[in-house]
Each structure stands twice: as C-alpha cells, then as structure tokens.
C-alpha cells in the first residue's frame, strides 16, 4: 500500500501533497477545540498501535498479500479529523526512518491511508452500525464492513494515482483492476481484524475508548 518514490509523476506528487495539506488544515480547524495533552497522548498510542500492526504481513500462500492498514479502526475510535493526525505520525516515521513509502509520495500515502481509508471506513461504520440499532453486533458488523471497504477504496485510489501517471498511457487499465481486485479480496482480512479489535477495545473499555467516548460527547466529528 505504501507507494515508493518513482511510482508517481511529479504532478501527482505535488497535487496530492496540496490536497493532503489542505485536508490537514481543515482537520486541524475541526478538531482544534478537543486537541489537548490527553487527546495527543491517546492519538500517539493509537499511532504506535497502527505502526506495529503494519509490521504484520498476512502470509497468504501464493504471495500476493497485505498488512493491516487500520484506517477504519482509527476513524471509528477518533473520527476522521483526529485519525488523520495519527496517520501523519505513522507514515512520516515510516518514510523518514524506515524508507517504507517515499518522501515524494508521502502526500499520496497519507491521502490514501489517512484520508480515503479513514473516511470511507468511518462513514460505512457509522451508517451500518446506526442502521442496525447501535448494538454490539451492529458495531462489529459496521467495523467489519468499514475495515474491508475502506481498504478496498484506498487500494483502488492508489491504483488510479499510479495508473494516471502521464508517463504510462492507458496504464490505469492495468493498475486499477489489479489494485481494486486484490485490495477488495484481501480487505476481508482487514475487516475481520478491525471488527475484532473494535469489539475488544470497547468491551474492555480500553483507555483509548474512554478518551474516544469523551471526545464523541463533544460532537466534534
């Protein structure tokens, strides 16, 4: 999922940096009133958890596989505005310290995982869990669908970005089906993990959930 340097044209890199920074400004304005030391600490713990989860590759025979991305999980817990900042921390650390994802493509990677995955996952979770009555079962089903389809959307968008590079005419016909198919298929694993982790955190009343519930009562989302 991490796009390395060299896969996107300069125009795409610049455009996605601009979009991501603009979203960041909006996210800051929307969430500013709930950002305090408690929120920042909780976000950094969430970011550390996402970082560790991304180190777990799913070993599927045949080889084409993924690791956990967690956009829906972050969105479900903290909403799309604060979740964005967790991804800025994770993806910047991965790019600068571990060369996982490029520097020129950092804007694109934050856009795909910290905006598209988070927004789609969060929206689906909200719609499904409310439609099913807000019960524990509804929460689990919503988290599963949010995790699954959020990742499928992020992978598809990454395929569009790579495929629309001017250096490769018609490449989008190759990249979008490949990325969409595999992320939709493998996203099922992401959905299962998201559902399990959300259910575990809420049932255990994890400190992360306690902070998240306090924030949601301030209706910042």
């Amino acid at each position, binding site marked *: *999922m*991490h796009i*390395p*340097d*060299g*896969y996107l044209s300069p125009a795409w890199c610049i455009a996605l940096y601009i979009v991501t920074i603009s979203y960041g400004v909006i996210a800051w304005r929307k969430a500013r009133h709930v*950002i*305090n*030391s*408690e929120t*920042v*600490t909780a*976000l*950094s*713990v969430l*970011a*550390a*958890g996402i*970082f*560790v*989860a991304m*180190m*777990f*590759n*799913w*070993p*599927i*025979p*045949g*080889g*084409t*596989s*993924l690791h956990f991305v967690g956009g829906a999980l972050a969105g479900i817990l903290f909403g799309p505005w604060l979740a964005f900042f967790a991804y800025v*921390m*994770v993806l910047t*650390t*991965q790019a*600068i*310290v*571990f*060369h*996982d994802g*490029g520097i*020129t493509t950092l804007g694109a990677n934050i856009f795909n995982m910290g905006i598209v995955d988070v927004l789609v996952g969060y929206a689906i979770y909200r719609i499904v869990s409310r439609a099913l009555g807000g019960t524990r079962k509804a929460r689990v089903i919503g988290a599963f669908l949010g995790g699954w389809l959020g990742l499928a959307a992020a*992978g598809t968008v*990454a*395929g569009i970005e*790579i495929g629309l590079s001017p250096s490769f005419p018609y*490449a989008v016909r*190759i*990249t979008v089906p*490949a*990325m969409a*198919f*595999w*992320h939709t298929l*493998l996203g099922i694993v992401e959905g299962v993990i998201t559902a399990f982790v959300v259910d575990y955190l809420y049932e255990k009343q*994890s*400190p*992360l959930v306690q902070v998240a519930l306090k924030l949601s009562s301030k209706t910042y989302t």
Partner: protein
Amino acid sequence: MSLFTRYKGTLKILALLIIISPLFGIILAEKVNYHEPIDVAAEKLHLHELDIYHTPFSDYEVPGLPPTIGYIIAGFIGIAVILGIGALAAKRMSK
C-alpha cells in the same frame, strides 16, 4: 496520568506484538514470497523504485544485526519515535 501509567496494558501488548512480529514480517513472508498488490501493478508497468535518500534502518533492518532481531529493534525504534513525538506535543499542550 502519564502515558506509561494510563496505557501500561496497551504498551505491554504492543511490546509483545513487536517481539513476535518477525514471524509474520520476515519468516512467513519469505516462505510465501510475500508481495503486495502494488508490486503486482508495478511489475506489469515495469516501474522501479527511486532511491533518492538513505536511512540507516531501511526496510526495518538494523545494520550488523540478523533481519529478525533487526526487525524487532526497528519496531521498538518506531514506537519510541511516535510516542516521543506524542509526548513532546502533549507536554507543549499542557503548558
């Protein structure tokens, strides 16, 4: 309440996960020839990664250490960086 007091349980779980992470990130990944969908797309387009900067811990390796041990150390470095940034920002917020 401090980071290490409030999130003690979560941090313990993360530490445990980092210790077992090479099983999935290195050993089983090598066994199944792990590659991501983006690698499939890149191969079809003959895309190549540009090496425009260098970090000592590229690909979660630590120079001089076996990949599995390096992966674990890299994991701890990663969460130390993230939690460190968080702690600095939180300290600034509380002023």
